[in-house]
């Protein structure tokens, strides 16, 4: 008998006006003991909804409108909250996308692990504690005993996710639902964490439903894949078959949107034709008239001996985030800064933008002139930033248009009346309709918000835009659209971009030259082509090796 059989599952969400929205329609899946299957699709496709339905965790406005979910021989689709108590943690474990928010911030990780053991097994007290240490050991957590007394904010994301793994396997469940288990983690950590997950599954004979948008992860982990689009199953089959010979257009698009470290493509094959409207034309003209596009070998930004020490709590105990960093950015190029989180990438950006004060001895000059860190107002017209998280970088109480122009109006760069028209023009420049100007940020998707963020940065007509992981919070297909947009704007406007990312595949697609950062120092520099194909440093090699690749023909290892 199959471990889990989902037949014609439909899930509906009640809307505010009384109508219902079918989030999942006629979804079926069969899972054998010990098998790993993937559910892939864009965000909003309904992947997580399926995972939550299996655990009875759907919100109160959602209901299973049709179909059944058989766990063994029991139909859990109609289970009550009470009945699910016998399933959750005991027969089905759960791994959540963001380990930092999955753990309760005010309880120690030990308590959170031990309570799961006590809730789901017969172990109590010291026996539960001993088991906790054994679980942490098998989840490859170093110093397991010390970790028990720590709180989530004291541990890294990778460690927190391993603790979440330990919680999920505490009662040796038959099945684990892993909802985007590595999306919030660094690439280098991602590999190791996935390795642990796969080993645990094999060792304990646990089946896994892996929910992800990342085809690379799927190709490494899964025996079978289910492709989901707008709540409907598009196709399913063995991983090698789906990746090697996708039958459906949607699956092919999903694959085409994945940036590759191994080759550079001029554009991603996604549909994003811009309509040539008068407003868009006007917007481009506005930008062109202000952004100097003398693409030559002139050095636009020069950074010399940039160091930054963050003071520790005790005297004399400082943390050196940046150590003697020097580089130059040529006008019109895209300059990459890569490295793991904590390597100092973002600190460079903050120092350039004047948001942190560098240590004495650093010189940062723009177009040959040194910039004083106090001159924030003058700087903001010349340097702009596109932020990592499009959800928190827009003011939620202002509509999209106001978000774009309030800065330039406040600085007197344009008058209030023409600013409104300009905002609408710029929305068209980034591929959104003029009417979007009146909508509030929450009405937009992540990709649309990031476009608004780009329009906001462009409005200043800056000489240089600092892009801090601009797509790491976005889906692959949305990421492809945003990257295409940046490339297109760069070509038509001659923008100079400094592009910070931990994703080497994205960097490969975007950057002309780059530096590789490790622990605050530059370990390698050169053209993107050369560094990413023939890395001179072992560290760069490690970063490259850690990138998940879509194994297009090979069997999953």
């Amino acid at each position, binding site marked *: 008998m199959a471990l889990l059989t989902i037949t014609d599952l439909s899930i509906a969400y009640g809307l505010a006006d009384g109508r219902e929205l079918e989030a999942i329609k006629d979804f079926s899946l069969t899972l054998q003991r010990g098998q790993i299957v993937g559910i892939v699709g864009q965000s909003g496709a309904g992947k997580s909804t399926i995972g939550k339905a299996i655990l009875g965790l759907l919100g109160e406005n959602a209901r299973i409108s049709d179909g059944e979910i058989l766990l063994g021989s029991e139909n859990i689709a109609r289970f009550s909250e009470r009945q699910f108590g016998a399933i*959750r943690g005991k027969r089905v*474990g*759960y791994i959540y996308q963001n380990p930092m*928010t*999955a753990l309760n911030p005010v309880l120690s990780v030990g308590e959170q692990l031990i*309570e799961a053991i006590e*809730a*789901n097994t017969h172990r109590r007290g010291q026996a539960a504690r001993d088991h906790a240490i054994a679980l942490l050991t098998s989840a490859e957590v170093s110093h397991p005993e010390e970790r028990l007394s720590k709180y989530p904010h*004291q541990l890294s994301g990778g460690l927190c996710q391993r603790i979440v793994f330990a919680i999920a396997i505490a009662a040796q469940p038959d099945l684990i639902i892993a909802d985007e288990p590595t999306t919030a983690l660094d690439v280098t950590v991602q590999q190791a964490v996935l390795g642990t997950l796969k080993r645990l599954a094999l060792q304990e004979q646990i089946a896994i439903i892996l929910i992800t948008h990342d085809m690379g992860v799927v190709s490494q982990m899964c025996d079978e894949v289910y492709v989901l689009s707008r709540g409907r199953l598009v196709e399913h089959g063995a991983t090698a078959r789906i990746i090697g010979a996708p039958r459906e257009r949607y699956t092919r698009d999903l694959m085409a949107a994945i940036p590759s470290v191994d080759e550079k493509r001029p554009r991603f094959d996604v549909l994003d034709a811009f309509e040539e409207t008068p407003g868009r034309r006007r917007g481009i003209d506005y930008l062109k008239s202000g952004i100097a596009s003398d693409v030559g070998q002139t050095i636009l930004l020069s950074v010399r001996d940039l160091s930054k020490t963050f003071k520790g709590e005790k005297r004399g105990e400082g943390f050196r985030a940046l150590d003697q960093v020097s580089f130059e950015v040529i006008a019109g190029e895209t300059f990459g800064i890569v490295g793991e989180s904590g390597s100092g990438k973002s600190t460079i950006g903050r120092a350039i933008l004047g948001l942190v004060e560098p240590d004495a001895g650093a010189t940062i000059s723009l177009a040959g002139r040194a910039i004083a860190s106090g001159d924030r107002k003058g700087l903001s017209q010349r340097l702009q930033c596109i932020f990592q998280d499009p959800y928190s970088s827009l003011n939620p109480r202002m509509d999209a248009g106001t978000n774009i122009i309030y800065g330039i109006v406040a600085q007197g760069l344009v008058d209030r009346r023409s600013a409104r028209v300009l905002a609408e023009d710029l929305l068209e420049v980034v591929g959104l309709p003029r009417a979007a100007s009146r909508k509030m940020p929450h009405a937009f998707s992540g990709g649309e918000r990031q476009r608004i963020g780009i329009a906001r940065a462009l409005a200043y007509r800056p000489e240089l835009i600092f892009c801090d992981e601009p797509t790491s919070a976005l889906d692959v297909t949305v990421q492809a659209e945003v990257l295409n947009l940046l490339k297109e704007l760069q070509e038509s406007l001659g923008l100079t971009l400094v592009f910070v990312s931990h994703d080497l595949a994205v960097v490969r697609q975007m950057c002309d030259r780059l530096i590789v950062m490790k622990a605050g120092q530059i370990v390698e520099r050169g053209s993107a082509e050369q560094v990413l194909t023939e890395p001179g440093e072992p560290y760069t090699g490690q970063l490259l090796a850690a990138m998940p690749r879509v194994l297009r023909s090979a069997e999953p290892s």
Partner: protein
Amino acid sequence: MMSFVLRRPGQSAILLLIMSVLVFAGMYVISDPVAVMAGEDATQADRQALAAALGLDRPLPVQYLTFLGNILRGDFGTSFVYGRPVLDLIFERLPATLEVVFLAMVLGLAFGIPMGIYSGLNRKKPATKLISMVTTIGYSIPNFWQALLFILIFAVWLRVLPATGRGPTTEFLGMQLSLLNPEGLRYMLLPAANLGVALICMQTRLARSGTQEVMYQDYMMFARAKGIAPPRLIGRHLLRNILIPIVTITALELGTLIAFSTVTETVFSWPGIGKLLLDAIYRSDRPVVVAYMILITLMFVLINLVADIIYAILDPRIRYS
């Protein structure tokens, strides 16, 4: 953590000093104790003699410095009206206020937190709507009016509780307390309930909004997913996260009630310090008012310090930063 506790006394001393200047100068401007005490038919000579006896004939800065010097020796002055050291007066009355406020706080937390969590978790239940309606009314009703209603209902109509006064007390650690005396406790119920109603309403609202926010956090869903049963889910995961705003407001309310539960004490003729303050202001008893305000400031400082320490215990992110 320790440095954080140790940094306080300096700041607090400055605060106390500023407070003492303000109150001292304020009382000097708004009242003339000599006029009040001497009466209308006193002669000019009588007034001057009285002023000299009280030390009020000297310039204000000199009076203030003398007052500061006396405080440093532990002498907060002598009441113009009662002719007794003000500290004695205040500490005689303080237990009466403290026990009423304590009972009110217990009522507020014991009813408010469970009601708030219940309505946060069950947004659509009829009981939630009832709680919401009752707390809105309870919060908006004027304190004195509510006190009169209580007297009317429980003392006049039902005749189950005494209307005014303190009733018998039992001595405990040198303090006279009604809380430990069964008959005395009956006298306490109405004043405590009168203070407690607003507290219950406020704690209900705080607990409800906290619950609604925390309930949708990822860690709550994850805790459910890992098989944690509702009692622990609410008692540990939820409660621990909603307590910080509750502690903040409890601390502020505690201070305010001890210092200024004047209306309730007046209506119920409860001999607490609120009533002492009111009488002192009417009679221009400057030493009492000034000493009272300084002690109250000191109390606020201490309560806030305790609240900050509780934050650190509740939230490790505060503890380790």
